[in-house]
């Protein structure tokens, strides 16, 4: 049960949010130009890291905005939250 600092609303309970998988996977601009393998890479392949992971979250029962989170999956520490389109503040 995290406390998540929504970049738009501030600190809210975990239960208001929905996790949306790995962040920074950009939908290809020209999908038709891609081979099956390249498309499959975009479509299916996701990392599952023990450690620092970049994730998408949605404040589903709040402002409904999507944003990004840097989370250490080994201890659930949230290192940073930042808006969509912004560069991660941590590498």
């Amino acid at each position: 049960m995290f406390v998540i600092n929504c970049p738009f609303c501030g600190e809210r309970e975990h239960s208001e949010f929905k996790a949306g998988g790995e962040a920074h996977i950009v939908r290809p601009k020209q999908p038709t130009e891609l081979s099956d393998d390249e498309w499959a890479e975009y479509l299916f392949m996701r990392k599952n890291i023990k450690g620092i992971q970049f994730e998408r979250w949605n404040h589903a029962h709040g402002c409904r905005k999507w944003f990004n989170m840097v989370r250490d999956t080994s201890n659930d520490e949230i290192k940073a939250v930042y808006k969509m389109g912004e560069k991660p503040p941590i590498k």
Partner: protein
Amino acid sequence: MTKNLRVKTGKAIDETYRILFKFNGKTYYGFKGDTLSSALLANDVHLVGRSFKYHRPRGIMTAGSEEPNAIVQLHDKSSRTEPNVRATEVEIYDGLEASSQNCWPNVKFDIGGINNFLSPLLPAGFYYKTFMWPASFWKKYEYLIRKSAGLGKSPTEPDPDVYEHKYIHCDVLVIGSGISGIMAAKTAAKSGFKTLLVDEKPNLGGSTIYQNSDYFKINNQNSSSWLEKEINEIKKLKNLEIRIRTSVAAYHGYNFLLARENLTDHLPVEQRKDKTRHKLLKIRAKKVISATGSIERPMIFDNNDRPGILLSSAIKRYVDFFGVACGEKNILFTNNDSAYETAITLIQKGINIEAIVDNREEVDSKLLYEVEKNNIKIFKGYTVTDTFGYKRINKISIKQLSKDGQKVVGSKINLSCDCLGVSGGWTPAVHLFTQSGGKLKFREDDQVFIPSIYPSDQLSIGSCNGDFTLDEILINTPRSLKEFLNIKNTEYENLEVISSANKSKRNIWLLPSDKVLGKTKSFVDYQNDATAKDIKLALREGFRSIEHVKRYTTTGMGTDQGKLGNMHALGIISETAGAKMGELGTTTFRPPYTPLTFGTIVGRNVGEYFDIFRKTPIHNWHEKNKAEFENVGQWKRAWYYPKENENMHQAVQRESKAARESAGILDASTLGKIDIQGTDASEFLNRVYTNAWSKLAIGKCRYGLMLNEDGMVYDDGVTTRLGENRYIMTTTTGGAANVMGKLEDYLQTEWPELDVYLTSVTDHFATVSVCGPNSKKIVSEVIPDLDFSDESFPHMSFKNAKIGKINCRVMRISFTGEHSYEINIQSNYGKSVWEKCIEAGKEYNITPYGTETMHLLRAEKGFIIVGQDTDATMTPIDLQMDWIVSKKKYDFIGKRSLYRSDTIREDRKQLVGLLTEDPNEVLEEGAQIVADVNKSPIEMLGHITSSYYSPNLKKSIALGVVKGGKNMMGQKLIIPMEKKNINVTVADPVFLDKENKRLNA
């Protein structure tokens, strides 16, 4: 006659208030303030249960929540019955009835006790080894094992009590109200923090509150008197909330904790009416201070489990607190100074002590000298080697320990007794700390695990942090608090402390015996009957990981999670395997710390509040007209409207015929509705639907299919262009929220450049759908000003209209294949418009129909239902809906996936119609479809997704998915059922009006 072992008024007891209660059918009395265990002990009842595996007689062992043995069932055969309750935690009240668990037929004569004599046949892993193979025998064994194990009975009637959940937010949560917890709560509250103090017991003060001797003093007062003053002061603090009888069950990340506050369990049953029984507190604390104390360790020697053997600290608590002597001939067995504190208490209260057996040789201890002064024999450097007495201890054997503590030497001495108090030192109660993700470190000096790395803003103080003596606590607690709360001073800076206990301990995990290990029963886990021998056997058989040994021997797997003996198990493993304790680590302590009832967990979410549901604005009409309802997502939808004596099939046949022959009316308010606005709205629809939207004229409607990025059908519905930059999209009832979420996701994350705004308006509109050949006449009467001519208002178009003064939107769209209109109006007017349509339709026999008829009508027409005919593996091509996939559009969600090597396979499962050879035979949805029943194994080609008897076509129709079905038109297939094979023919999925004559009529 039972003996009365009440010695002197205890701190917690009100001797003017007698309470009668029943235990195992016999009536006893105790006093207000007693726990079930203190009251039983006062009546000289030690034997309270049988052990799990060997059914050995067991007695009360502790005075707290760590109790492994005294597990009872309350109020057997009543709706309030509760199993697995610790007698040490039950406060007695008038009318309390408790009975022993885990013994059959009764506690004094227990058939399972024979297991005790068979125990050589019941080693560790016995259940796994014997009963798991052959698997087919398990059913028989299970019955017998469960009967003889008998771990309590669950209630058979609904729980009459009320439970609640409550959220609490605080700056500082203090868990535990012993001396360090009281100091922490006072300091935090006085420093301006909004503080919550919880304790599982009904009183504050922990064990210091009954520490009344000259050997423990603070500022020249007995430590108990000093603490009492502190408690009286904190009760006046405005910033501090105190909750007693509140046990923290779970400590999750980010300082989120669950606690159970017990409000009525101590009251007589008749006083509980209309009161909340338990509150589940969901606590979010900025800072948490754990002052959870420590649990005294037993010692591991042969037959260390007999009734009458208690923790030494429990004996002290029973005397000081409840005024109850646990025996008349007491012996204490210890490896540290704690037992002498108990001895001093017993001496003060005039209770006989036969002897003290101390592992240690020479110790310079003031407490020990005091006891010696009272002419009590102390056997220094001795250990207990065996105990005697079946239902109550009556004798022990002791022997001298060798210098290295590995052997016993010299001759055996027998001592008679009726109570043996053991003290193996203390184990910090770090359960909650580890639940929170905290890491422990092992302190070699006194062989304890203490908190090391905190995962959140928290602090452990007092004995749960390894400070066991009064002076350590009073010096370290203020120091830690200052740093943790970031304050300059506490009230506890210059206390004068007298703390006389000697800190030495002679820790021997498994005490030596004069017998070989195989002949001993030295219990490590009392509740699950795991012995030192079992642990060694597990190691011999190759188990190394502590988690594996735990599961194999079941050590620590009881309802007490091995609060007493887990450390000894680790110690024995460490010694036997030659591994360091610190490297072995501990097993994982899992929530809840003590068991919670289901009632507490579900709170008010019972009965009609079990799951929330949504009602349409027309719901009351459906109810009044006797509709049966169906759950669709969270909605209650009218399913069918049975007339007198009609069953579902009859009602649906009647409704379906009426809709096609004259007029039907459906409440379609549950369909998801999304208002889409913005200059890029058309482009947005182009990207999310498979077909093209740019050319849709204002005032026209279009059906759209939405895919996932993997090319599989996700949702469908009709979208209407309301204006240049405005659309209203409808979604399936169940998919509405997900579609909205998905569209928002793409807009915000992939296409932020698009000028599009989405608003969910599902609840804002009621939708009344009127269909059938007479639908036009009916809606014209309801909306007389509107031109309903086919030229002006053709199929798939929309008009704004007014009913009276109220604006509404009318769409001519159809999910049944009939000429039909949907009137969308602000929700408040939904029911009135519905009733107007019913009134206007009277002369046309307008028939309300529910979801079942809707499904039948659309199946006749071959319209799919997403989620029924599709299952996230169906592409539009698989559905034979190639026509809806735009070839011209450069991209849309899922487009690229439609020509992956897998999605272009010809032999994918494809949607087809199926007609039975016998037109009256209706197939079962979900039934398998095969071609050849003689082949082995039979190749499964697909399954039936929708199936009905069509009253309009007068035959059975079905939709199904079949491998390569698209190219099998006219082929014969078989539906193999339990009793017969049904012959079917593959057909066009559109069974009725392929030319759309009825739609456009």
